[in-house]
C-alpha cells in the first residue's frame, strides 16, 4: 500500500488464518487511513498506484475496488459510472462503488487519481437533483449532504432513469434502521488484540478516584435500570443516603436522573455531581427528600454552600417550569447557591453549526471572514461552554462541592462535567484516560448519541439532532491548543473520534443509553472504537506531552484565544495543505529519533572504550569507530 509506509502502521491481529490475515491487514491499513485522514474530494495523493502492488489479489470480490480493500464483513452492493461534480474544479468522470459500509468513488478519466471514500453513516440526506427533462450539462443526478461539513454532487446520464437504482441503494444503506436493516457495526467482522469495551469499568474508575469511602458509597439500585433507564447500573451516592431516599429523589428529578457523584477531589474531597432539573413546575413544588439529599452532598466534605450550576440561560430555566421542570429556588435550597451558565440549547447549537458550514463549505467566505465567523456564534458558544467548565473546576479545586445540571442532564451537563474533569484531573488527559472520560460522562450517563447524530435514520430534519458532542471535542481541541504539552493525545485522535462518531463502523457511539445498548448486545456484537485506536496508539500520541499530575488547567475562555478548528471544519478544501501530521510534531519526532541514535552510538563507543580488548584510539580505523565519526562531521551545524 502506498498510502503510508512505516512500521508503526501494523495492526496486531489475532492469528487465525494466515492468508486471510494478510488480506485483512492490508485492508485495515487502507481503512485506517481512509477514516483518520479522510481523503479530500479532490485528491492528489498517489492513491492509484497501490493497485499495482496488490495486483495478485484475485481473491477479492471487487476487482475495481482493488485499492480500497473491504473491511471484514463489508460487502459490495452496486457500482455505476457516474460524474462527480467536484465543487472546486470540474466534473470528474468515474465509477462509484457502494458497499454496505461505504461509498467509494474513483475517477476513470485521468491518471491522476480523484477519489472519495465515505462511510455511508456520514450521510445525513440524499436528494435527487434535476429531472429527466432538465436542461444543461450535469444537471441530473444526486445531491448528498454529509454530517461532516461537506456535500457531494453526482451527475448521471439522463437516459433510462439511470439514477433510480443508485439513489435507492444509497438511501437504503445509508439509513439501514429506517429500512429494517442492521447498522454496519453489527455486520463488521473486524478483530483486534485488545477489547476496547474493557477500557472503562465503572467500579475500577471509581476506585481510581478513591471511592467508595466513608462519605460516598456505590449503589447497585439501578442494576436493572429500574431507578432510571438512562443512567448506568453503577452509581455513587452520599454514604448517608438510603436506597429509599434515592427512589424518593428520583420522583422529583426529570426522567429520574437523580444527583450522583461523578468526580471526587482526592485532597479536599469536593465532588462534582450531575443530575437533571428538579420538577418544580409552575406551582413551585418542593420536595423535602430532594432538599435533604442535596444537603447530604454538601455535608460530605463540609462545604458551606453547595453550588448548583444550571447550564441554561436563566430565562430558559424559567420557561422550563411551564413543562414541569425548573430550577432549585432560594427558599427551598437555603444551603445552595444557584449559578446560571447561559449555555444555549441543542437547537441553537445546530443552527450555529449550520451557519458555520455555510461560510466554510465549499469555499471560505473571504470578504468578511471575521464578522461572518462572529455571526455564526460558534466560537461564542464554545467560549460559554468552556468558561462554564472553568467555573466548575475552579469551584471544586477551591474545596466546594458542586452540582451540574441542565434540563435532562445529558447534553450541556455532559459537556460541563467532562470538560471540568479534564481541567482538574490529569489522568483524563492521557490517551486512555480520555477514553474513560468519554465512556463515563458521555456514553454511560446517557448522552443521546442516536438522537443527536441520527445513526442510520433517514429523518434528517429531526429536531433532536445537534452537534453537542462535536462541540465538546472542539472545546478539547481548544484546550490542546492552549496547552500543547498537557495532553497525551494529538489532534488526529480528535478527528478520528469525530469521523467514527458518524461512521457506524464501531459500536461505541451507538444508541442513547446503556440500557438500550445492553438490550442490543452492543458489547458483544460490535467492535469498540477503542479496540481500533489502541491497536496502534503511536498515531495518536502527542510527542510534546509532559506528564504533570497535580496541575489544574485553566484555559483562557476568551475570543482572543479561541480559534476556528480549521483542520477539522475546513479540511475538504483542496486549497489547503492536507498534512497527516503537524509539521512541528513531525520534526519533534525526527529529533527524538536522532537523539536515540546518538545515544546508541555513544553507548557503543563507550562500550568499546571500556572493553579490555580495545587498544587505543589510534586503532579507531576499525569500521566500528570510524562510522560514527564520519557522521559527526556531517552533523556539525545542524541547528
Amino acid at each position, binding site marked *: 500500500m502506498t498510502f503510508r509506509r512505516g512500521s508503526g502502521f501494523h495492526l496486531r491481529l489475532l492469528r487465525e488464518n494466515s492468508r486471510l490475515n494478510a488480506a485483512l491487514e492490508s485492508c485495515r491499513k487502507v481503512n485506517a487511513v481512509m477514516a483518520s485522514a479522510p481523503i479530500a474530494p479532490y485528491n492528489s495523493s498517489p492513491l492509484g498506484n497501490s493497485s499495482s502492488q496488490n495486483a495478485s489479489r484475485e481473491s477479492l470480490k471487487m476487482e475495481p475496488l482493488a485499492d480500497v480493500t473491504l473491511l471484514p464483513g463489508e460487502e459490495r452492493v452496486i457500482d455505476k459510472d457516474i460524474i462527480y461534480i467536484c465543487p472546486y474544479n*470540474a466534473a470528474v468522470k468515474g465509477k462509484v462503488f457502494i458497499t454496505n459500509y461505504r461509498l467509494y468513488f474513483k475517477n476513470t478519466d485521468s491518471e491522476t487519481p480523484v477519489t472519495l471514500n465515505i462511510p455511508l453513516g456520514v450521510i445525513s440526506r440524499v436528494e435527487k437533483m434535476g429531472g429527466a427533462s432538465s436542461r444543461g450539462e450535469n444537471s441530473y443526478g444526486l445531491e448528498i449532504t454529509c454530517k461532516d461539513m461537506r456535500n457531494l454532487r453526482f451527475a448521471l446520464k439522463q437516459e433510462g432513469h439511470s439514477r433510480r437504482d443508485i439513489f435507492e441503494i444509497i438511501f437504503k444503506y445509508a439509513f439501514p434502521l429506517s429500512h429494517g436493516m442492521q447498522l454496519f457495526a453489527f455486520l463488521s467482522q473486524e478483530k483486534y488484540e485488545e477489547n476496547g469495551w474493557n477500557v472503562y469499568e465503572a467500579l475500577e474508575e471509581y476506585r481510581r478516584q478513591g471511592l467508595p469511602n466513608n462519605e460516598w458509597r456505590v449503589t447497585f439500585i439501578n442494576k436493572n435500570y429500574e431507578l432510571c433507564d438512562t443512567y448506568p447500573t453503577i452509581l455513587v451516592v452520599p454514604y448517608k443516603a438510603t436506597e429509599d431516599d434515592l427512589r424518593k429523589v428520583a420522583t422529583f428529578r426529570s426522567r429520574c436522573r437523580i444527583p450522583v457523584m461523578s468526580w471526587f477531589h482526592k485532597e479536599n474531597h469536593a465532588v462534582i455531581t450531575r443530575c437533571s432539573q428538579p420538577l418544580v413546575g409552575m406551582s413551585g413544588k418542593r420536595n423535602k427528600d430532594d432538599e435533604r439529599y442535596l444537603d447530604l452532598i454538601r455535608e460530605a466534605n463540609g462545604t458551606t454552600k453547595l453550588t448548583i450550576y444550571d447550564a441554561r440561560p436563566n430565562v430558559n430555566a424559567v420557561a422550563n417550569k411551564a413543562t414541569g421542570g425548573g430550577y432549585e429556588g432560594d427558599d427551598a435550597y437555603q444551603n445552595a447557591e444557584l449559578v446560571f451558565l447561559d449555555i444555549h440549547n441543542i437547537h441553537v447549537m445546530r443552527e450555529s453549526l449550520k451557519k458555520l458550514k455555510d461560510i466554510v463549505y465549499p469555499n471560505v467566505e473571504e470578504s468578511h471572514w*471575521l464578522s461572518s465567523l462572529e455571526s455564526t456564534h460558534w466560537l461564542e458558544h464554545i467560549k*460559554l461552554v468552556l468558561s462554564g467548565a472553568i*467555573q466548575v473546576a475552579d469551584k471544586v479545586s477551591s474545596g466546594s462541592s458542586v452540582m451540574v445540571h441542565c434540563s435532562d442532564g445529558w447534553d450541556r451537563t455532559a459537556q460541563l462535567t467532562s470538560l471540568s474533569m479534564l481541567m482538574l484531573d490529569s489522568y483524563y488527559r492521557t490517551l486512555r484516560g480520555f477514553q474513560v472520560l468519554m465512556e463515563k460522562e458521555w456514553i454511560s450517563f446517557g448522552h443521546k448519541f442516536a438522537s443527536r447524530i441520527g445513526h442510520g435514520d433517514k429523518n434528517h430534519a429531526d429536531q433532536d439532532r445537534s452537534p453537542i458532542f462535536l462541540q465538546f471535542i472542539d472545546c478539547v481541541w481548544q484546550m490542546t491548543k*492552549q496547552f*500543547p504539552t*498537557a495532553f497525551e493525545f494529538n489532534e488526529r485522535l480528535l478527528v478520528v473520534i469525530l469521523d467514527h462518531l458518524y461512521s457506524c463502523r464501531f459500536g461505541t457511539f451507538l444508541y442513547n443509553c446503556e440500557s438500550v445498548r445492553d438490550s442490543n448486545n452492543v458489547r458483544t456484537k460490535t467492535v469498540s472504537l477503542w479496540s481500533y485506536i489502541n491497536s496502534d496508539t503511536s498515531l495518536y500520541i502527542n510527542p510534546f506531552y509532559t506528564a504533570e499530575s497535580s496541575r489544574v488547567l485553566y484555559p483562557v475562555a476568551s475570543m482572543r484565544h479561541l480559534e476556528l478548528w480549521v483542520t477539522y471544519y475546513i479540511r475538504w478544501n483542496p486549497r489547503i495543505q492536507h498534512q497527516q501530521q503537524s509539521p512541528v510534531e513531525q520534526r519533534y519526532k525526527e*529529533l527524538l529519533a536522532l537523539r536515540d541514535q546518538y545515544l546508541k552510538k555513544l553507548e557503543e563507543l563507550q562500550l568499546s572504550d571500556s572493553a579490555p580488548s580495545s587498544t587505543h584510539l589510534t586503532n579507531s580505523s576499525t569500521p566500528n569507530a570510524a562510522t560514527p565519526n564520519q557522521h559527526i562531521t556531517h552533523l556539525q551545524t545542524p*541547528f
Partner: protein
Amino acid sequence: MFSGKQTKPTFKSYLPPLQTDLKKSPQLPIKKLEAKLLPGEIVVNEANFVRKCIGADSGQDDLWGKLVCTNFKVSFISHNSLPQQRFQCTHRLLGEHDIPLACVEQVVTVNDVKGKQKILGSNQKLKFNPTELILYCKDFRIIRFRFDEAGPESAKKVCLAIAHYSHPADPQLLFGFEYVGKRYHGSAGERVNGVDPGGGLQTPLFDCSSDWDREIKRTGASEWRVCTINQGYFISPSLPEFFVVPVSLADQDLKQYACCFYSQRIPLWCWNHPSGSALVRMSNISDPQQQRKVEQRISSAITKSHPLRSDVFKSDLDKNLPNIQDIQAALLKLRQICVIESFEESEEKWLSSLESSRWMEYVRTFLRHAVEVVYMLESRHVSVILLEKEDRDLSCVISSLVQLMCDPHCRSLHGFQALIQKEWVMAGHRFLDRCNHLKKSDKEESPLFLLFLDCVWQLWNQYPAAFEFTEVYLTVLGDSMWVPVFSTFLFNCPRQRAEHSRDFASSKSIHLGQDQALRFPPVWDWSQQFSLKDQTLFNNPLYVGKIATCLQNGTVKTFTHRRSKKNYSSTVRGLPSLMRNGSLGPNDTLTRRNSLVLRLRSDLSQVREQPETPSERFVRDFFSRAVDLQGLLLPQLLPSHLSVWKLYFLRWVPEAQIPHGGPVTAFHKLSVLTDEIEMLQNQLRQYKGAAGTANTSHAEHSKMYFKATSTPQQCPAPPEYLSSSFPFSPVGNLCRPGILGTPLSKFLNGAKIWLSTETLANETI
C-alpha cells in the same frame, strides 16, 4: 456575557501570591534610589514618593519609588520588587521599569479630584497639579504612576519634563547622538560603549560595494553590477552610495536618467531569482515627457540582463495596496481593541472589531501581492519592477516578502537581517518619519515595518521549521525601533545619517576620522541590548537549516540544499513567448509543473463560475505538493488561516495571558531536546578529537535558552514562569486607566480611536 465572575479563574494565577505588607510605607530611604545612567545620559527631573500602579484594580501591589526623567528614558526606581520573574530578560540599556522616551506615544496627566486631564506636548503649561500620569507607549504598554504622596510641584515638573523630552525638536536630540558621541571623547579606545559598528557582525550592512558584490554572486546575477555614481550622495539624496544596476547601463546613462525619477532615485536591483529573473524597485518618473523613453530604456536594460531576455512585468504598488495613512489608522484601531477597550466589553464583538480595524486585511493584502510577484518570477520567469511613487515604503515590504518566500537564505538569522538592511535601511525607508521619533507630523507616522514583521510572522506561523529565528526575535526587533540608539531605525536614509553625524560632530568637536558617520551600532549588534544567554531566545529549535539532519527510515541523513541551476534551466525550456510590456499572453499555460489541474480541466466542463487565474493555479499547485522548507514557501492566504500575532499584540494584556500555557510550552520541550542533541554531538565529537580539544563546557555554547538537565532522557518540568506572554509579562505594564473607579473610557466617551489628540484636547478644561 463574560462577567467578572467568569473571568476570574481564567487568569487567577498569573500573579504568584505576593508577600505583601499591605500598607507599605512611602517613607523609604531615598538615598539609594539613583537612576542608572548610560554614557551621555543626564537626569532632567525627578520626583520622589511616586507610586507605580501594578494591578488594574486595587492598589495593593503598587510599588513606591522615584520617578526620573532623563534625556533617554522615563525611569522608575524602587526598593520593592515585583513578584519574582526570573524569566524576564534583563535589557542592557533599560531597567525593569524604564521606558525609552522614544517609546512614549502620549503623556496624559490627570487630576482625579478636579476631574481634569490633559495630554501634554512639548513646551506646554499645566494648570492643575497632576495626581496621576499615564504613559501610552508605542509598544502597546500603558504605564501609570500616581503622585498622592509626592509634592504637587515636583509631580508637575516631572510630568512636564517627560512631555518635553519625549518631543525632541531635532533629530540630534535623540539620545543615540549623545550616547554614541560620548565614545569619541575621553579614552581613544575604539569600543567605548562596547560598540563595534559593523565589524565582527556577520550581517552585511550593504554600506560598501563588497557587500553588494557578494549579494550579486550569491544570487548569480552576473548581468548586474555595483554602481558607485552616488558616492557622496551627489546624484540622489535618498539612495545609498552603492547600489546595483544592469551591466548594460553605463554610469553616464544613469546620471542622465536620474533626473527623471522622483528624488533622482535610479531603479534599484533587489534580488535575482535562480532562473535569472530580477526583482527591481523603482520610483515614479516625474517628467511625463521623458516617461516613455526612460521607461523603455530601463526595461530593455533589465531584459538584456535576463538570461532568457524575458520581458519585464511592472507591479504598481500604489494602485494595489493601502497607503501609509490607511495602515496607521488600522494599527490605531487594533491598539484600541487590544489594550484600550475594556477586555470584557470588547469580547463580544472581538472578531468584527478586529475585522473593522482592517489590520488583518492589510496583512493579507501585502502577502497576496507578494505572492503575485513571486508567481511572476517563479512561474512566468519574467523580471519584475515594483513601482511606487517614492519607492520607500510599500516596496520595502513587498520586495522583502518576495525574497523571504523565494530565498531560504533570507530565512536564516543573518540572511533576514541582511534583507532588512538591504531593502529597508539602505533603500531609504524613512524610519525617522514613520516612527515619528520627533512627534512632528502624525501624517507621516506609519507602522510599515511592524506590518512587515506581522507578515513575516504569518509565514513563520505557517512554516515554523523554515526560519532560523523565533517569534520572540521578531517581537524584540519590533520593540527595538523605540530604543533610539541604533543606526537601523534612527534615520530616513543613509545620507541623512551622514549629515546629522557631521553636524553633531562639528558642534561637539568630535573627530570622525575615517568614518563617514558616527558609529551608531546597528540593531543587529544584539549584545547592545541582551546578554548572550537571552539572545538564545532568538534561536528556533525547529529550524531545518541549510545543512540539517533528519531521520529517514531510521538512519540519520544529512541533506544539503542546493539551488541547482540545472533544475531551473530544464524547466524554462518550454517558456511561452515573451510577454510584451508585462501583459499576460492569452494562452497562458503552466509549463513548469505537471499540473494535474490543467489536465483535469482540459476536457471537462467548468463548475466554477469564475475561471481560476494562472496565479491562483500556481498557488493551488504549490499546495498540492509537499513543501520543501528550503525552497519556495507560499503562505496560505485564506482569511481563516491567518491569525492575530498574539505574542506581539496581546502580551501585555493580563486577561489574555495563559498561565503555564501557550506555544512556549512546546518550545520549551523542543529546546531541551535540541540542547540534548547538541550535547550528545559534542560528546561524540570528543571521541573523534582524541587528544581532547579544550573541553569547553557545553552550557556556554548551547544555542538553546532552555537547557537539558544533566540526566537526559527525562525532560525537566516546564518552569513555573512560562506563560503565553513569555518572555514578557503583563505585570505593571498594562494599567488601563481608571480614575477613582471611573474607567477612562467613560471619561473619553466618543474617543473612538486611540486617544486622538483632537478628541482629548476638546475635553480638556
